[in-house]
Structure formats: structure tokens, C-alpha cells
């Protein structure tokens, strides 16, 4: 390490990076420490009350999770009550937790999800369902968007890397959505996804000769998150295409010539020349997409506000909603800190998985 490039005498280098470092420190590192500090207080956005230190209480509230077993309702003779369809009837957890001393610990907690287990109902209850739902949605978003967006971007990069007339026009077209503000793109896609006479429904209707009925894409809990994923992938795919493209252009043409002479097929050329040559680019693209996907906010804010039925809640949206909408700065900070830890952990794992094994 003593001979690391960072420590060798390169005062000019440090000097040149100083403005960048200063800005990053001022607007990213310092606010992070603020958030960390505020998350252990009861800080409000608007309040005359003095701020108090509350330790980890905010974290305890947000992360509180437990497993509850509900026994079915029985009539006087002890038989399980079933409704007309034969479904076993359970008491409402919320009624129990509000009245039954045995359930006192779960007061104010809500069922997140549950399942049938023998003749009882197991329920995972949480104190802050919105956080858990937002966490699940965000992870799902990242899991879908990162590979799909990275893959499509690579495909597009391979397409526009050919030496054809007018290829720059295609590069420009694919890159265009990246330049447009995400807020504008979200507004436009709101019209495209419109349930009554949106462009997408019209298109499907025409192509299928009316066989596909119109879908209220953003108004239906089962399609809303998917619709936002598709639109987000489309919007930023051009950016990653350009990164892949720069990677492709660093691969020496002589390698392809050699592969050609050896009689390699197109697939073999991709597998043994292109892909190894894109190693570092791939690491960069995956880490960048993952971090961007975790920051999902503007699309939600413009298109769905987290609805319908919380199907599009995201962590950053919840952080902003709590901090500014509900004037609860400490609540917003807690989510920010948890998100930071999450992204850091995933990035470290990604770095470790994609480490250069030769050294």
C-alpha cells in the first residue's frame, strides 16, 4: 500500500480533485452525518418544542416486527366457525391488540402478510407497514431493473457499435430520454398509461383487434409497479448504453481479427473476446444501476404517490413524505440511514463478487 498511486507525489492531482471533493463533502458526506445524528432525535421540520435525543427509539419503532399466531373463532361448542365458502374465521388482530391484554405488545401493529398453518393463522405483524412495503417494493425494483436495464443497454450498445451509415442517429435516439427531465418523462408516461384512452391501451387495442381489454396501468395494484419499472428502464437505458459503448470501443480490433482467423463464431467472439473485455465496464454499470434504482423517487412522486394500495411505495419516497410532508425529519432520516446501510452493503458484496481474482 505504501506504493499506492494515491500516496505517490502527485500534488497537482490532489489539487485538481479538491473542488470535487469539497462539493461531495459539503453536499453528501456532511448531510449524511446530519441524517445519522437527526435519526437519533425527535427532530421536527416545524416545531417550537426543543429537540430531544431519543437514542435508537426511532429505529426500534420502524423495524419492529413479530410473528403472531391467531386461533380461529369458535362457537359455544368449540367448533371452528367457517363462513359460507368454508373459510375459517379469525378474530381481527387489530381488535385483539386494542382490547386483549395478551396482545398488548402488538397494539398499533398491523399485519404485513400471513399464511394458513394447520388450524391457525400465522401473521407477520409490523409496527410500520409502510416502511416494510416500501423496502420490499424497492428491492423488487432493483432486482428487476438492474439486470434488465443492464442487459438491454448492452444489446443496444452492440447494435449501435456497428460501422453503418447514420448510426449516430440511432445513438442519439436511444440516448434522448436520458437528456429529458425525469419529471417530464413521468408526466408523459402518465398519459401513455392512462386507463381510458391512453396511448398504450390504444396501441394494444389496435394491434390485437380489440382482443386485449384496456388496463388501468397505474390504477391497478398488480400493474402499477411493473409499469413504473418498464418506464424507468426505458428512460435510463441510453445512459448505460453509452457506458457499454465506451467499453466496447476499448477492445482492440486485432482481438476480433485473431478470433476471426481462428474460426470463432459470432457467439464465441462475444463470449471469449467481448465479454472479458467488458469486465470493468460491467462492474461499473451494475453498481451504478443498483444505486440509481435504490433512489427511485421522481416517478413515484409524479405518477402514483405510492398508490394504489401502497403498491408503488419506495424508500426514498417515504423518506421525503415523512420528512417534508409529515414534518417528521427524524423519521425521514431513519429511512435515509437504513437505505445508506443497505446500499453500502450491497455495493460491497457486488465489489467482492466481481473482484479481480488474479491478484
Amino acid at each position, binding site marked *: 500500500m505504501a506504493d499506492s498511486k494515491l500516496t505517490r507525489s502527485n500534488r497537482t492531482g490532489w489539487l485538481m480533485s479538491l473542488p470535487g471533493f469539497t462539493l461531495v463533502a459539503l453536499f453528501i458526506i456532511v448531510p449524511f452525518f446530519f441524517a445519522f445524528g437527526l435519526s437519533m432525535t*425527535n427532530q*421536527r*421540520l*416545524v*416545531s*417550537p*418544542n426543543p429537540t430531544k435525543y431519543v437514542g435508537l427509539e426511532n429505529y426500534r419503532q420502524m423495524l419492529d416486527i413479530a410473528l403472531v399466531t391467531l386461533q380461529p373463532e369458535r362457537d359455544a361448542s368449540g367448533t371452528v366457525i367457517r363462513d359460507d365458502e368454508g373459510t375459517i374465521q379469525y378474530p*381481527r388482530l*387489530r381488535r385483539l391488540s*386494542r382490547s386483549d391484554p395478551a396482545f398488548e405488545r402488538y397494539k*398499533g401493529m*398491523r399485519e404485513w402478510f400471513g399464511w394458513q398453518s394447520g388450524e391457525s393463522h400465522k401473521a407477520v405483524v409490523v409496527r410500520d*407497514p409502510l416502511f416494510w412495503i416500501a423496502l420490499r417494493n424497492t428491492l423488487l425494483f432493483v432486482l428487476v431493473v438492474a439486470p434488465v436495464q443492464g442487459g438491454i443497454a448492452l444489446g443496444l450498445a452492440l447494435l449501435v457499435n456497428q460501422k453503418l451509415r447514420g448510426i449516430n442517429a440511432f445513438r442519439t435516439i436511444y440516448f434522448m430520454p436520458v437528456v429529458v427531465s425525469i419529471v417530464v418523462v413521468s408526466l408523459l408516461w402518465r*398519459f401513455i398509461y*392512462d*386507463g*381510458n384512452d391512453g396511448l398504450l391501451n390504444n396501441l394494444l387495442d389496435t394491434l390485437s383487434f380489440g382482443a386485449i381489454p384496456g388496463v*388501468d396501468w*397505474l*390504477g391497478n*395494484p398488480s400493474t402499477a409497479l411493473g409499469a413504473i419499472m418498464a418506464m424507468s428502464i426505458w428512460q435510463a437505458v441510453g445512459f448505460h448504453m453509452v457506458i457499454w459503448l465506451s467499453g466496447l470501443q476499448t477492445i482492440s480490433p486485432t482481438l476480433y481479427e485473431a478470433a476471426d482467423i481462428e474460426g470463432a463464431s459470432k457467439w464465441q467472439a462475444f463470449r471469449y473476446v467481448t465479454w472479458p473485455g467488458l469486465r470493468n465496464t460491467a462492474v461499473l454499470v451494475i453498481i451504478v444501476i443498483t444505486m440509481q434504482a435504490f433512489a427511485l423517487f421522481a416517478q413515484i412522486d409524479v405518477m402514483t*404517490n*405510492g*398508490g*394504489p*394500495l*401502497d403498491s408503488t411505495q419506495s424508500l426514498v419516497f417515504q423518506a421525503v*413524505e415523512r420528512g*417534508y*410532508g*409529515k*414534518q*417528521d425529519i427524524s423519521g425521514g432520516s431513519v429511512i435515509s440511514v437504513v437505505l445508506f446501510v443497505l446500499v453500502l452493503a450491497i455495493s460491497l458484496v457486488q465489489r467482492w463478487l466481481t473482484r479481480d481474482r488474479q491478484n
Partner: protein
Amino acid sequence: MRQKHHKSRTQAIVKQALTAAAIAGGTLFTGSVQAATDLSLWYHGAGNEVESNIINQIISDFNASQSDWTVSIQSFPQESYNDSVVAAALAGSLPDILDVDGPVMPNWAWAGYLQPLPISEEQIADFLPGTLGFWNDELYSVGLWDAAVALVTRQSILDEFGLRKPTLAEPWTADEFNDALAAIKESGKYEYPLDLGMAWTGEWYPYAFSPFLQSFGGDLIDRDTYRSAEGVLNGEAALAFGEWWQGLFKNDLAPGTSQDPADRDSGFLEGKYAMAWNGNWAAVPMLDTFDDVLFLPAPDFGKGPVIGAASWQFGISGDTEHADGAASFIEFAVNDKYLAAFSDGIGLIPSTPGAAALTTKYAEGGPMAVFYELSEQQGRVRPVTPGYVVQAKVFEKALADIANGADVADTLDSAVDEIEIDIKRNEGYGHD
């Protein structure tokens, strides 16, 4: 703003020096060199030219009418106005005069952004109740106008379905209203019988829909104590409201949360909806399009017909050193002449009967006079508590979720929990 204070201090010093000089110089300078003190005013209406012209006219009239104060205005777009004020307050640079949305006023008063408004009682004696912002028994803000919501439809639609025209004295009952919606739905002539404006997210939900809940007998919070919502937002009445509300969407009587904003703006005019729940600010195009448009009172769901009251109002910033100047500007502005100008310019409801008589739309027999009466007779302010800001958000989400099919009891229970936790975290918001 520090600069401004600095400037006014400098001016004060200059004034003193000049006064001294005037005394020393005998009659040389008598009285003519009184420099006016600058007052800053923040306003939410950036982007509306007519509105800007009226407020600028008031300011220039005020500045010309006396020599102690010079008011200067800074306008913000409405969407970012509240954020700007909060940011300015945190940075310690609030202006001298603020305008504030009625239901948000207690939050700002509690936080010290506003101070009580020393304005004579007779000057506001005949103001509509919704235009006066009281918090802890003190007046903090006063509005140059109010807004009202009505059930908009056409006489020809009432005739077509044989519906009685409801009046202020005898509004529709819940049954009459529900039957009307069902009959219109049955005919299949409209995409939806009723447009509630679900596309307008934000303050519209509590403003426009919490009156339905109140008419059922529930509320956002217990207004006796302002410390609990248990039994009020999740009691019998609230559950009945929730079931009714969910039914509107389940039975396709009204477009839901994914309504296209363009349809909200023009759906009624285009004949997609038979009725619309909409405000007086949207009335002018309706009057222009149809010659038989009706602005009907809210239905009575059991506890009387209710609509929301209170719109934007003026108040004095908590930081200002010139409360007297700010108050004299507000006293100057709450003049029937200006109330009428706002009403004529952008269709708002003037705060006094005297001003209403001066306007074209709200004068007796005018096309929108009914809104004045709606405001006077049915208007109820949203809960007067600093916690309203949070309660409004919680209520909005609960209504959206119920409309989308969430369990009514669970959703309202959760809303109650969230509101009560928030009140506890804020040490009761100053309510004893």
C-alpha cells in the same frame, strides 16, 4: 433579510441624524425627510397575471397612501410556497408579511412563524367566518376571500332523471343523493355519474371530502381536545362514511384515484360526468359552456350539510420588527374595494356582504351568488390545530386506499394510530 434589517437600521440612524440636523437647522428640513421603512411581503400566486396585477395595485395604493412604510412583494408558485416559508423560517429570514393557507395557519402560529394580528374588531365584524384565522382565541390571519365547493350539475340533467332540485334549506338526503347517482348510472348515458376530482391529490382531499365525513358525524380528530381521534375517525359514523365512500368506486359511480387530470378539468364540460364536486374557482367556464348550470348545496348525510371553508389569508411574520407596519398594510388591504377586485378578477368569494354587492358575479342575483350563501351557511373550517398538516396527509392516504378497496375498519384504525402517535411525538401540539 439580514441585509434588509441592516438597511433599516442604517435608515434609522440616518433618520436620527437628519432629525437632529433638522432641529439644529431650525425650519430648514421640517418633516419632509421621513424615510419610509421597507416591509417585505411573500405571496403564493406567482404565475397568475390577473392576481399579480390586483395585489400589486393594493401595494402601490398603500405605498402612496402614507409615508412610513414601503411594501415590496415577492411571489412564489403555490406548489413551492409552503416549502419556501419553512426553509426561510429555519434560516431565520422570514419576510414581514406572509400569506398562509387557512388550515396551515395554526401550524405556523404554533411554531412562531406568525404573530397575532392586531386589527380592530369592527373592521372584520362582517367577514365570513372561514376568512378569519383564529388560533388559541387570537386572530392570526385574515383572508380577502373564501372558497366554496358545490355539487355542480345542470337543470336539464335533474329534469331528465326527475330529480328534485335541492335547496340550502332542504338539501338532498343521503338516500336522495345515492338514488340519483344510481339512476344516472343505470341510464348509461355518462361515463360516471359523479366526478369527485380524485385526480387532484394533496389538500383537495381533506378540503373537499372531510366535510362528507363530518356530515356523517365523524371528523379527522376530536375537536374538544384535539388530542385523540379514537372513536371519531374510526367510530360508527366514520365506518359508515368509509363504506359509502368505497361503494362510490366499487360501483363505478365516480372515477377513482387514477383519474386523468385532464378529465377532471374538462370532463363535466364535455358531458362525461353528470355531476361534479367542484369549487367556485372552476365555475366560470361552466357558466360559459352551459346556460342551465346549477351549483347545488352539499347533501346532508345525517348531521347537516357541510363544505370546507378557509382559503389563503394574510398574517404577520413572527420575526418582524415592524408588526405595526405589517398590520397597517393588512388593515389597508381588507377593504371592500380590493375584496371585490379579487372576486371579479379570479372568481373568488368576497369576504364581506358589502364587497359581494360590489362584484358582478356575487351581487344579489349574480350567477355565483349561491357560493356566498354556501360559504356562509355550510362552511366549516378544517380542524384548527398545528397537527392538521399531518392529519390531512394521513386522511388523504386513507381515502385513497379505501377508494382502491382497502379494508375500511383497518384503514381508519391505522389512520387513528398514526394521528395519535404524531400528536404524542409533538407533545400535544400545545393543546392542554
